[in-house]
């Protein structure tokens, strides 16, 4: 059952007197734990290190499977570059979707640089014009960098960061060209 409060009794910024329109209500609802556990609930709920340890083991257990999936995804990226650059919108969408997945997942499974390169590629695809894609250099370089980061995960971080900066410079140069050519 929700508990209705007067605004002035609620702590924090929301409670400032005279600052709350009359049609605004503040409601305190019991937490999910309070509702589920009732009198069994022991507050505050503390994190259990054993649960966290098991969760980390779960991620480690999935790493090998993900590494295989990642290789297949990179192979697919390489296939998609050409049609995407030739204007195939479905290929472009699929390419973006794969890069988006890598951006979100590779870091979790011990491939942070793959995630960074994929993030850079997603940013490029989100902001580029169809005309920019005809020259597939930027995409190709990104895909190569992703493949290299997977094949050589122990590469010096400084080298990898340098590659990332070079890709960002390339994207910026392309933007400048586009502006210059109108």
């Amino acid at each position, binding site marked *: 059952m929700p508990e209705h409060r007067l605004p002035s009794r609620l702590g924090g910024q929301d409670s400032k007197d005279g600052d709350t329109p009359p049609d605004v209500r503040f409601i*305190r609802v019991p937490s999910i734990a309070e509702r*589920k556990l009732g009198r069994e609930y*022991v*507050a505050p709920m503390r994190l259990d290190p054993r649960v966290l340890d098991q*969760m980390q*083991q779960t991620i480690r257990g999935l790493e090998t499977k993900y590494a295989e999936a990642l290789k297949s995804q990179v192979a697919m990226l390489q296939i998609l570059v050409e049609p995407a650059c030739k204007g195939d919108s479905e290929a472009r969408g699929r390419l973006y979707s794969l890069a*988006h997945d890598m951006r*979100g997942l590779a*870091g979790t499974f011990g491939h942070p640089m793959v995630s960074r390169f994929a993030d850079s590629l997603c940013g490029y695809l989100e902001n580029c014009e169809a005309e920019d894609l005809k020259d597939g250099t930027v995409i190709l370089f990104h895909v190569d960098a992703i493949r290299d980061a997977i094949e050589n995960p122990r590469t010096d971080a400084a080298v990898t960061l340098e590659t990332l900066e070079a890709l960002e410079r390339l994207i910026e140069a392309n933007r400048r060209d586009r502006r210059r050519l109108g």
Partner: protein
Amino acid sequence: MSGAPTSADSGFFGRLKVLIVEDSKEMRNLLTALLETMGVVHIIETRDGESGLAAFARHKPDIIITDGAMIPMDGYEMTRAIRAAGDAEGANPDVPILMISGHVGRDKVTHARDQGVTDYIAKPLSADVLYEAIVAAVSKPIHFVEKPGYRGPSPRRSLDARRS
């Protein structure tokens, strides 16, 4: 983190029903595996905001974990619809909603907060950040603001993306 008695164990998580709304199959698999490790038994998976909204009404989850960018309906629009749902045939419109997203710019986090998202987690995901966010979401009492056109966590609160 301490070894003191806690309710954040498999006995508690076994009572939770969790809805995952995520378009990436790999991400859904990861989230499901992590939730199962925590002891969650009732997990519903959907691929976009539209099917997530239908699953919310049908399954009445205790917590929702959603991606941001999805088509045809994204996680922001789904959150807004849930908060506006009233008592949707017994489903809880005050349900904690955790958004996990690769977009961590201030504008995206603020947009998520304004739609009624409870907490925002940056990708790449880590076990400790997910666990902490879930425990916080289910154990903290829910303070909601209700005004014309909006019901949800205060849109004036500070919300930063949790990062690994």
